[in-house]
């Protein structure tokens, strides 16, 4: 299996200003494209759901048309065991995790960036504190913590997502700390201080804006994927959104019995929605990481 390398013209422009996009590997470009498409689709669907611009009434039960497969009798994605339109319920299902997901991302990123800069910039006790917090959060499996919070407060999805945000913050903090230490290793921070750059500018412009923005964007995409997984798992376990309000998790759960009797579609439609979304956000995060953070851009 031979590989081809070629050079088009004799003289290559002095320093061609190729953007990260044009120099990215083909695989990474595809990942980012697919991921971005999923993200846009989710955003649009969320908006549709929020404005109630839905193809059908999510609660309307068409008893003649129960358990239809995809594109049967005008139902694009078929109907569930009570004859309700699956496509509409899927769109509405996004309400269950989208805003809460954004909340958890907001908490994780702001707290994480703050703690990360503190730990990296000040070092010493602050760094020990963040490391301790990070290990503390990692000590408990997230779902166990969720169950504990559920047992204690019977919380709504927003509280749950706030807890998810809090528990993701140390991970973000560790990544941001890594960036700060990288800049310290190059004496960049010391050199900025020596130039006379005020600490505010060092932290916000140099550390956070220039060096952490792609990192935080990537954490946001992974955070949304996590939100989907958490929400659907909890509603599968019966703690999230309850019937009849649709959530991808409880739709899969509700369809499970029918699945075991051979009607796969009613449970698989929401499951595939979960798969496509989580995969989309993972690929988006991974693609961006390879493009901006990866070192292999030889």
């Amino acid at each position, binding site marked *: 299996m031979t590989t081809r390398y070629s050079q088009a013209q004799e003289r290559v422009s002095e320093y061609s*200003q190729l953007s990260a996009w044009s120099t990215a590997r083909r695989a990474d470009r595809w990942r980012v494209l697919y991921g971005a498409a999923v993200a846009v689709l989710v955003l649009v669907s969320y908006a549709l759901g929020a404005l109630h611009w839905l193809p059908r009434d999510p609660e309307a039960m068409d008893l003649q048309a129960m358990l239809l497969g995809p594109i049967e009798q005008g139902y694009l994605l078929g109907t569930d065991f009570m004859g309700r339109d699956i496509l509409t319920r899927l769109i509405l299902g996004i309400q269950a995790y989208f805003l809460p997901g954004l909340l958890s991302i907001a908490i994780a990123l702001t707290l994480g960036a703050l703690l990360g800069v503190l730990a990296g910039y000040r070092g010493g006790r602050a760094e020990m504190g963040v490391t301790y917090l990070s290990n503390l959060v990692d000590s408990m499996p997230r779902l166990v913590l969720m169950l504990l919070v559920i047992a204690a407060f019977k919380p709504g999805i927003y509280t749950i997502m706030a807890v998810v945000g809090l528990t993701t913050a140390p991970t973000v903090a560790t990544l941001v700390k890594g960036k700060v230490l990288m*800049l310290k290793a190059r*004496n960049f921070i*010391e*050199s900025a201080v*020596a*130039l*006379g750059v005020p600490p505010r500018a060092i932290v916000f412009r140099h550390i956070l804006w220039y*060096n952490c923005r792609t990192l935080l964007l990537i954490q946001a995409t992974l955070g949304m994927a996590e939100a989907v997984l958490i929400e659907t798992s909890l509603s599968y376990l019966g703690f999230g959104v309850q019937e009849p309000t649709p959530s991808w998790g409880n739709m899969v759960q509700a369809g499970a019995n029918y699945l075991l009797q051979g009607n796969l579609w009613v449970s698989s439609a929401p499951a595939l929605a979960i798969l496509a979304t989580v995969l989309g956000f993972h690929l988006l995060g991974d693609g961006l990481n390879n493009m901006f953070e990866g070192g292999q851009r030889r």
Partner: protein
Amino acid sequence: MEPMDSPLLEVRNLSKHFSQRGGLFAALARERGTGVIPAVDDVSFDLHANETLGLVGESGCGKTTTGKAILKLMPVTAGRIRYAGRDITVLSQEEFRPLRREIQMIFQDLDAALNPKMRIESVLREAVLLCEPTLASGALQARIYELLELVNLKKNKLSSFPSELSGGEKRRIGIARALAMRPRLIVADEPTSALDVSIQAQVINLLRDLQSQLGLSYLFISHDLQLVELVSHRVAVMYLGRIVEMGPAERVAHAPRHPYTAVLWSSLVEKMSREGAASSVAPSAWGVFDFERPTEGCRFAPRCPVYAARGRPAQCTDASQAPRLAAADGGAHVVACHFPLPAQAGPG
């Protein structure tokens, strides 16, 4: 402007002690039983306007720490630093920041001055705006071009990222960034050690031209005695945190009075010439170890050929009689040694 003769920078009894640190100094700390390591121990010197003082010594001798202490990049354990007549040791970071403009630093690491994700244009724009915040965009652009001119870099470099620059170009951008602040004193920490020989020569010439053009003073820190002697008007040789010899560059290089300077010089020359210089101080005469445990009094004693030749006189290792910098030949040339080398023409 203060009178010509009073120095721009006065450093008096500067000391910087670190709490227990592994590696080289651990031996010293354990030796003294204290957890404290005197990285810089009672260092004093002056630097006049338009003058270059070379600070030379092996790695770990405290020369970089001295430089950074002057720039208040690290707290000082003891001693006073006066810049342009003002005592800056007592100033807080806030109070000191306006003065930072006048005292700039060039770091050994070529990437230190450059944010990896920032194009060169924004690096220079930030520096210029720090110095003259009210500059209009036209004047700002002109100033940036002027800076590129000063360090002879082409304009098309402005849109490059640091990763796309060569070593020489990174160093020149670092210098341009420092010059944007219109400094009077530049602490240059090993400015050329990471560069190739031909690029090194360009940067040395550049620094000399800037000195004559802008009237800059340099504290030139390096481990390369030859380079320091070449570039500096006066040279201070440091060993394990102390200045062991200081004086006019030619004298320190050609008529070294401290055995360590002679050893430093001969190991360079010996490395260069084929047969090995017939220097008065044969390098292989002293200990095989890289760094023997430094002792009280003169820290160089364990490696010092004169100490060995004179049958290890007690004076050298007596804590109470630690050698102090004393004039060796009428003022300008001082040395800290009980048995300084005779003032004959040395090697090189």
